[in-house]
């Protein structure tokens, strides 16, 4: 269980949000939306330990993540190009996190020929798959997916989320999905969709079926139990 308690953060003395409290369970996907500039990315970075909050704590199974080790919360950047060294080839970029599992390489459709290329020589969808693969190789407990499919076409977007949904379930990884696209969040998030405002999170009920990429009926019943446990 990842718990955020009463988080506040901002820049240069200006507070973007405060009083953000939520709990994300392993193997679940939780959606986060909000207006431009509300601080969605900053909240994601706070949870991944990349930005220091001005108040509040993040705990994983009751403990604060230790620094200096592989982070249990991995942050996936909206533009994977911005999270990679442009002078490194894909082989080096992946090796940064260790040796990816062969099964994952196949699942993500990674072509062996890509290894000798530079990041700018892959398309956006291909590069985002490499970025997710690298994050998964670090054996994270949680992922922050910050608009990871925003620049992709609908088919590539759906493929990536189906794959991530399966991996989240099989490896019991919790995902915080950040997006402007409410329909996407309602589709992928079995733990519901939340909106970030200045005074914390507001929970929204989805209009249609929620989290239909999770076809596991056992998970579904556990999920409805889990949903009531969410605090916001």
């Amino acid at each position: 269980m990842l718990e955020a308690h009463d988080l506040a953060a901002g820049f240069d003395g200006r507070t973007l949000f405060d009083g953000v409290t939520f709990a994300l369970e392993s193997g679940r996907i939780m959606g986060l939306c909000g207006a431009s500039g509300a601080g969605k990315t900053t909240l994601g970075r706070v949870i991944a330990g990349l930005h220091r909050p001005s108040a509040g704590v993040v705990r994983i199974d009751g403990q604060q993540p230790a620094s200096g080790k592989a982070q249990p919360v991995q942050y996936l950047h909206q533009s994977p190009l911005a999270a990679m060294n442009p002078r490194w080839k894909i082989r080096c970029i992946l090796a940064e996190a260790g040796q990816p599992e062969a099964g994952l390489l196949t699942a993500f459709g990674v072509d062996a020929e890509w290894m000798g290329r530079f990041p700018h020589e892959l398309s956006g969808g291909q590069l985002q798959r490499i970025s997710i693969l690298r994050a998964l190789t670090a054996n994270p407990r949680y992922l922050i997916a910050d608009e990871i499919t925003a620049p992709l076409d609908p088919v590539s977007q759906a493929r990536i989320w189906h794959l991530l949904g399966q991996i989240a379930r099989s490896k019991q990884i919790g995902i915080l999905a950040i997006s402007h696209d409410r329909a996407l969040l309602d589709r992928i998030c079995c733990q519901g969709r939340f909106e970030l405002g200045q005074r914390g999170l507001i929970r929204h009920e989805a209009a249609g079926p929620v989290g239909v990429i999770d076809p596991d009926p056992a998970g579904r019943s556990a999920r409805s139990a889990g949903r009531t446990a969410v605090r916001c």
Partner: protein
Amino acid sequence: MLTIRDLSVGFRRYRGLFRHEETSRLSGLNLTLDAGEVLAVIGGSGAGKSLLAHAILGLLPPNAVLRGKLAFRGQALNPVYPPALRGRKIALIPQQVSHLDPLARTGAQMSWAARRSGSAADTTARLAALGLPPQVAQLFPDQLSGGMARRVLLAMAEAGAPDLLIADEPTAGLDPENRDAVLRMLGEHARRGAGILLITHDLKSVLPIADRVAILDEGRMRGIEFPRNFTGRGAELTSSYARDLWRALPENGFLTDA
């Protein structure tokens, strides 16, 4: 107004010291755009959307190889780009907000754009038309939100009342309210008689304002559709690729029914 016949764009690069190879990025593209029309060009990243915009503007890098015919109001745009067209008759709304000068105030940049295209620089009126308060003229680009910056870029591109406006991902990174505001402004510009080439990856958002939707995938045109046919299960769509895109949207099948 704009006619594109059998357009191909490739890049030449060196392989070793003496040999070079050509990689193709756009091939066999045919498009027409009429005055008063909004033509949306949809494609994922790497489909060649921005390349198409740069080809129409004559802004391809020196190692690009362009084949086929490009014409604007009967005037050929290749191999030699005609002078006094770009920025006056044909304008671009760039994808990145970083196209603004970081060291100049918004108002100054808007009046420079107006002066360059030979029209009056009434910055306050222009800002009001975009729904922005007059104080915005005093701000520097880094003080603008994404939605405000996009409207300023739109105002600068529209300053000279261009006949053809190319909008390259004008809504990327905007929240739904700002996105719809920008699209509405483009639609209004078309009603005043301009042709709009709206390049985007966001199929759903352009359907209310587009007259036709061209679908680009890996440098090839995969069909031109009417927005009204993007409905239900997409049975009316003429290309199977357009149908796949439509059904993969989260509101529709999201590939769960594929």
